């Protein structure tokens, strides 16, 4: 199909697509995002070959989709129509699925989700993990083929763009986004409409304005943006085109997506989606006959966390190293190549079509606070979190703003792994903090999390159990940030190295009582005197753990004890009487410092033990303790 030249043609095209679609047509959706790490690509091959062998390859579609969310149970497969949900599917299951489910319509009990009491949950929507969410942005991920613009259009895609181009003025669009109370999902929570307005109003002598999508997703432990780009790239593109119209039209808006290099599948799918949008005339000159001209380029990052910061990101697109600059002049006025530039996060962009499509009232009904007349007055819409770490149901979770940590971790996440005790939850990535159990009933929104010393951040939510050492967690983030500091400011460059060395010595058992005060003092200097938010927020993980888990620091310093059993210098491994004498640990110990005979209790020679933890990992009888 060639270019679509007007909004009415788009609607005609959509109607045709829908009319020609057989609602009974079978499709097998396989997550090929995170589930690749479970070998989902082999599963796709097996489905394709199996269908071919049965002569069904033109009757049944195999869709390689984005992340469905319930990563814990991957590889995930959803069969349409009916949204039949299969989990932990292996290539060996494929023949049975094709014979029984596809050909005969029978469900395979073994692959379905079972509650603890044995109740079978056939559809995705019945599974508690999904049922307790509100999936607006992720809902199509298990049915949409990200390689097909027709799939997106058939589901109503580009409808919001059509609505905007057919009947709205750019400033009306800006006002709508402002009234919706949408706040930036990249971490800062700045009201998106306010940013758009400033950028639209900033003077540009030649009319050029840059519209950028931040897909650098630097927060280690978070993959919301990856899931959106890999699962539903057109939603992000549609948001950006609407943004280009609102901010840059009439004029010369130009688009960029800055994607991290570690996401090759996202880069590929986004590239395909952009090409398809161009072919349809949704990007390029005179989009849908509206006079709007706009195109989007992809820039790949090079693995530097600081490049997610707005000015560093723009420096990187310009071909420089990604060092931040002072923001006396805002990037909305003079950003990329000194032109007015509007940067938003992937998830922020993906919200835009929804808001324009369903309206301000619908959107503001979801979330917290009151944003009428004050875009800072609350947090509206949903937020996607990457729920990971020591929680039973790891995966991607989309909930209304204001959902409590407890609901996310327990109702959706199914509680802590292996029946262990909850210790902390880390939000906000390297700029955020760790919250203890007594904060579990906190409603999660931009303002509440900041009040208690953490932050919303981009949506990483890392659950930690009793086996986690909070001093080690602080140490981890400090080293991360010291490595990632661009080195421009001395407080950040040197201050972080000093913080690292103090915390290192605490972890090694050489901490001194006065170290805690020193850490406080130095933290303050680093956050006060650094140029960009990387340095300014760098002490947050340290400060929040010192505030909520001070006793662990004191134990490390005074008693030379690590209650999480993590800090090597402070722990010993020993074998208890559950030992069956299976010989495994003896065989696997790299130091050969475990002795014992078959069927007899084994013993560790402490003088040679390097505390690698291998014995504990390999023991199947829970016979290795760490003290």
């Amino acid at each position, binding site marked *: 199909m060639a270019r679509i030249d007007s909004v009415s043609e788009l609607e005609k095209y959509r109607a045709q697509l829908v009319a020609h679609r057989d609602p009974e047509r079978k499709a097998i959706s396989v997550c090929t*995002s*995170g589930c*690749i*790490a*479970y070998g989902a690509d082999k599963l796709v091959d097996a489905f394709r070959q199996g269908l071919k062998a049965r002569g069904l390859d033109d009757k049944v579609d195999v869709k390689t989709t984005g992340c469905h969310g319930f*990563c*814990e149970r*991957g590889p995930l497969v959803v069969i349409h129509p009916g949204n039949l949900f299969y989990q932990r599917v292996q290539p060996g299951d494929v023949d049975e699925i094709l014979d029984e489910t596809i050909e005969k319509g029978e469900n395979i009990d073994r692959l379905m989700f079972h509650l603890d009491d044995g109740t079978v949950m056939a559809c995705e929507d019945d599974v508690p993990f999904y049922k307790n969410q509100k999936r607006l942005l992720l809902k199509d991920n298990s049915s949409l083929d990200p390689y097909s613009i027709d799939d997106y259009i058939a589901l109503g895609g580009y409808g919001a763009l059509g609505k905007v181009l057919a009947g709205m003025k750019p400033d009306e669009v800006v006002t709508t986004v402002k009234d919706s109370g949408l706040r930036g999902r990249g971490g800062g929570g700045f009201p998106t409409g306010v940013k758009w307005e400033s950028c639209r109003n900033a003077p540009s002598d030649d009319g050029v304005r840059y519209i950028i999508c931040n897909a650098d*997703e*630097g*927060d*280690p*432990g*978070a*993959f919301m943006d*990856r899931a959106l780009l890999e699962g539903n790239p057109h939603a992000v593109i549609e948001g950006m085109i609407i943004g280009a119209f609102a901010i840059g039209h009439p004029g010369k808006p130009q688009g960029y997506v800055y994607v991290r*290099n*570690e*996401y090759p599948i996202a880069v590929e799918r986004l590239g395909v989606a952009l090409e398809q949008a161009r072919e349809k005339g949704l990007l390029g000159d005179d989009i849908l006959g509206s006079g709007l001209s706009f195109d989007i380029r992809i*820039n*790949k*990052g*090079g*693995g*530097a*966390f600081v490049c997610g910061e707005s000015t560093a990101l723009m420096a*990187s*697109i*310009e*071909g420089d*190293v*990604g060092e931040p600059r002072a923001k006396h002049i805002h990037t909305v006025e003079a950003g990329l190549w000194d032109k007015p530039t509007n940067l938003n996060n992937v998830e922020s962009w993906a919200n835009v079509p929804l808001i324009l499509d369903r309206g301000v009232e619908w959107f503001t009904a979801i979330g917290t606070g009151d944003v009428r007349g004050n875009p800072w007055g609350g947090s509206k819409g949903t937020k996607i979190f*990457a*729920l*990971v*770490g*020591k929680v039973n149901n*790891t*995966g*991607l979770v989309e909930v209304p703003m204001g959902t409590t940590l407890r609901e996310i971790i327990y109702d959706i996440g199914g509680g802590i792994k292996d029946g262990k005790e909850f210790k902390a939850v*880390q939000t906000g*990535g390297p700029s955020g903090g760790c919250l203890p159990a007594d904060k579990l009933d906190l409603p999660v929104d931009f303002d509440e999390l900041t009040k208690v010393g953490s932050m919303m951040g981009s949506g*990483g939510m*890392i659950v*930690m159990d009793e086996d*986690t050492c909070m001093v080690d*967690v602080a140490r*981890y*983030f400090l080293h*991360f940030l010291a490595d*990632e500091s*661009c080195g421009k400011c001395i407080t950040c460059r040197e201050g972080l190295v000093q913080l690292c060395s103090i915390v290192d010595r605490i972890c090694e058992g050489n901490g001194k009582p006065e170290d805690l005060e020193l850490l406080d003092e130095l933290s303050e200097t680093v956050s006060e005197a650094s140029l960009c938010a990387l340095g300014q927020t760098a002490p947050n993980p340290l400060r929040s753990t010192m505030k909520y888990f001070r006793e662990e620091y004191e134990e490390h310093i005074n008693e030379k004890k690590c209650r999480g059993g993590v800090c090597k210098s402070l722990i010993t491994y020993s074998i208890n009487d559950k030992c069956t004498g299976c010989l495994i640990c003896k065989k*696997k110990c*790299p130091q050969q410092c475990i002795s014992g005979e078959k069927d007899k209790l084994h013993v560790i020679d402490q003088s040679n033990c390097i505390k*690698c*933890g*291998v014995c504990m*990992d*390999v023991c199947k009888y829970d016979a290795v303790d760490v003290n």
Partner: protein
Amino acid sequence: MDDTKLNTILDKHHRDPAELLAILMDIQAVENYLPKDDMKQVAKELKIPFSKVYSMATFFATFSLEPRGKHICTVCMGTACHVRGAARLVDQVQRDFEVEAGGTTDDMFLTLETVNCVGACALGPLMIVDGEYHGNMDAGKLDRVLRKLKKQDAKE
């Protein structure tokens, strides 16, 4: 890299200094690392100082200035993987192959790298061996993956 190949890469990026990062990535994709001579040539062709090319190559974690081994083993050190014991995996590879993180074994068999998250955090700890992702790693699984690698190599 010979001149024709290099020129193809430069032309693909319109010899635009703003595309330096992408150009260096393309060179590394072919060479497996960034040879110094290629960086010098890029500076000359784009008419920018060598120091600029060098600062780019050292700023971004993705680049290696040393030749890398036949196999590349990348362990994710993101937060989610860290709390599930990623550091132990790195230790194990270091011990097993007598190689430092970021380094290559003397026989050029294996390069051990770390990365700050590859976006499959729910399956942590995670590692990538020659482009293949392995989730939920532990000491035993790692042992199997590495042994397979060695065996496969002995056969060749």
